[in-house]
């Protein structure tokens, strides 16, 4: 008796799971009668403010702007929270491809999840457009014919920041580095550029992960004669480091703080008194031209916040994908990928961007400095442009690539 009850209970929950699997419907032009895009994002963790619901909103805007359908085939948007767990992200991606007939996965903040999704996408032969993760491995040794890396990567952050900052005359550096792969990669790449530009790396300190208190490391940075203190950190670490750097008066003691990865939502959260004068690299700022302002205004009405570069990237990625499907007349991944790579990227955020054979999207990057409270005229008026770096100088050249797709001479 009891066993039947338990069996029934298990069966019931498994069946509930099964019901989410729709029957395979056969469409005319497109594989299952609809074009289905999955936004795999972080709705509850570290990155949920800079991506999360904002990413979903941006994707919806892109679909709406496209008319919601292509040649009568509806475009459907679904989303899921990967909880920053690679296995949850991977199993969601698999289920989407295998069961839910998702055609493309977009966004995917968190490099660990992205790397897992990259593999699965290749096996399922669908499309993944990574607009939020950082790891340049996605178009390096982990590149696939099915993945695009849309917005930025660690290589670009390192190069643009180092080049632009050294060019503006600040040549001695000290690193505050998160003691894990992301931090190590950023420090290594940035340091290499600094030295190639005749700058000097005077020292670095490895900060353990999830360490709320940075004062000890900031003190070590302060003791160094370096002009630049570079934060090779992310998320909450960056925020705490910035806040405490202000507290310990790093700025007053003549240090220039450079945040290698910082989103506008984080600047907003920290406030200008703490973030003023910090330098950062980003591919997008809402107040660059009429195009960015128009998009951002619409976005703001939906989300009560200005879009981050991640979220703006999601819009661009969805738009470019839909364009390619329309042009190719099919949603079959190889054709769509081919079309996407052949089509230049042009939207409010990207001018004359292009997609390279390794999946890397090339776009201009910009070094900004955060305004002082006095300079800021309005809410969200946060950045002033220091210099722009053109796409071809910002990203890793194919000659240095270790992507297996790239044929070496």
């Amino acid at each position, binding site marked *: 008796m009891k066993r039947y009850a338990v069996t029934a209970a298990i069966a019931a929950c498994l069946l509930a799971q099964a019901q989410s699997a729709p029957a395979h419907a056969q469409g005319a032009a497109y594989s299952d009668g609809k074009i289905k895009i999955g936004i795999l994002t972080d709705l509850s963790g570290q990155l949920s403010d800079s991506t999360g619901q904002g990413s979903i909103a941006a994707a919806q805007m892109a679909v709406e702007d496209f008319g919601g359908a292509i040649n009568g085939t509806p475009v459907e948007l679904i989303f899921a929270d990967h909880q920053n767990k690679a296995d949850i992200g991977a199993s969601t991606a698999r289920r989407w491809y295998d069961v839910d007939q998702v055609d493309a996965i977009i966004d995917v903040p968190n490099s660990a999840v992205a790397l897992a999704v990259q593999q699965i996408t290749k096996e399922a032969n669908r499309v993944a457009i990574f607009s939020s993760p950082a790891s340049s491995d996605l178009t390096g040794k982990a590149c696939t014919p099915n993945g695009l890396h849309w917005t930025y990567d660690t290589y670009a952050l390192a190069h643009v920041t180092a080049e632009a900052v050294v060019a503006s005359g600040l040549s001695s550096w000290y690193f505050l580095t998160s003691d894990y792969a992301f931090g190590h990669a950023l420090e290594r790449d940035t340091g290499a550029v600094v030295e190639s530009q005749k700058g000097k790396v005077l020292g670095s300190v490895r900060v*353990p992960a999830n360490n709320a208190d940075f*004062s000890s490391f900031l003190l070590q940075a302060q003791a160094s004669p370096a002009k630049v203190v570079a934060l090779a950190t992310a998320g*909450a670490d960056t925020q705490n480091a910035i806040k405490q750097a202000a507290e310990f008066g790093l700025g007053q003691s003549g240090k220039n703080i450079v945040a290698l990865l910082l989103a506008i939502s*984080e600047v*907003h959260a920290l406030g200008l008194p703490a973030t003023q004068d910090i330098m950062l690299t980003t591919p997008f700022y809402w107040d660059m031209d009429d195009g960015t302002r128009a998009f951002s205004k619409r976005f703001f009405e939906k989300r009560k916040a200005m879009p981050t570069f991640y979220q703006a990237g999601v819009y661009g990625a969805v738009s470019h994908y839909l364009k390619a499907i329309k042009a190719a007349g099919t949603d079959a991944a190889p054709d769509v990928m081919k079309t996407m790579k052949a089509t230049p990227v042009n939207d409010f955020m990207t001018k004359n961007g292009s997609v390279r054979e390794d999946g890397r999207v090339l776009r201009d990057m910009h070094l900004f400095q955060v305004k002082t409270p006095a300079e800021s005229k309005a809410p969200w008026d946060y950045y002033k442009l220091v210099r722009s770096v053109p796409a071809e100088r910002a990203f890793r050249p194919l000659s240095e690539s270790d992507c297996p797709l790239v044929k070496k001479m």
Partner: protein
Amino acid sequence: MSQLLGIPPQALFGQLLLGLINGSFYALLSLGLAVIFGMLNVVNMAHGALYMVGAFVAWLLLTYAGVGYWGALILAPLVVGLVGLALERTLLRRLYKVDHLYGLLLTFGLALIFEGAFRHHYGVSGQPYPIPDLLKGGTNLGFMYLPTYRGWVVAASLLVCLGTWFAIERTKLGAYLRAATENPTLVQAFGINVPVMVSLTYGFGVALAGLAGVLAAPIYQVSPMMGSNLIIVVFAVVVIGGMGSILGAIVTGLGLGLLEGLTKVFYPEASNIVVFVIMAVVLMVKPAGLFGRER
């Protein structure tokens, strides 16, 4: 010799001072945990979450009620204490008759709920909380720049720690608490309402966490995750000091802060682990903790 183990002595002083600052945070949090454990035999896994709630209450007061830092310093611990009181009366109380491990599991669940709820409502970026005007700026001590606010944190938490120690070791109320920790039944038989004392103790313990949260708000971002990152370390501090020992919590809190500070200079990669290594060693050698009584 101008260098000590490769570090200029002045930098070393600076690091020791910083260690002391962190240590006073540890002390404040572990003190609350120790008080609770001594009386309730509950390892309060929700302590970190309630520390976070304390910081959030301060931020909410500032943002929506215009109550500033000084008001929050009183109100936030009070709110957190009341929350604790309610939790003890409605939930924890039901578990005293079963294995202590259930108390641990319950508070673990509570921690998840608190953190999840705040994360859901306020996101994870964290909210900024300004340093109060009175405590802005800093002093150059020669070997380091000491922000006034950090000085205040050390002073305030040492004051609270010593005050708590005094209240427990030197007052009538403290005598009740110590006696009830030792033999609650007999204290009950003297006409003291022990269940109410237990509730108040829990309330007081988590109020200390709330206070620590307010003190932390201007230093760290007020973020839903600020507690969970800290709590396991504080946990270890309490275990090293001796579960339930008041003095042990304070002294080990400060001591481990210093030790961790030194590790950050000499071998930063290990600074996450050092406390746990010490905890494992202490538990093996002296299972009741450095200051604990065998129970």
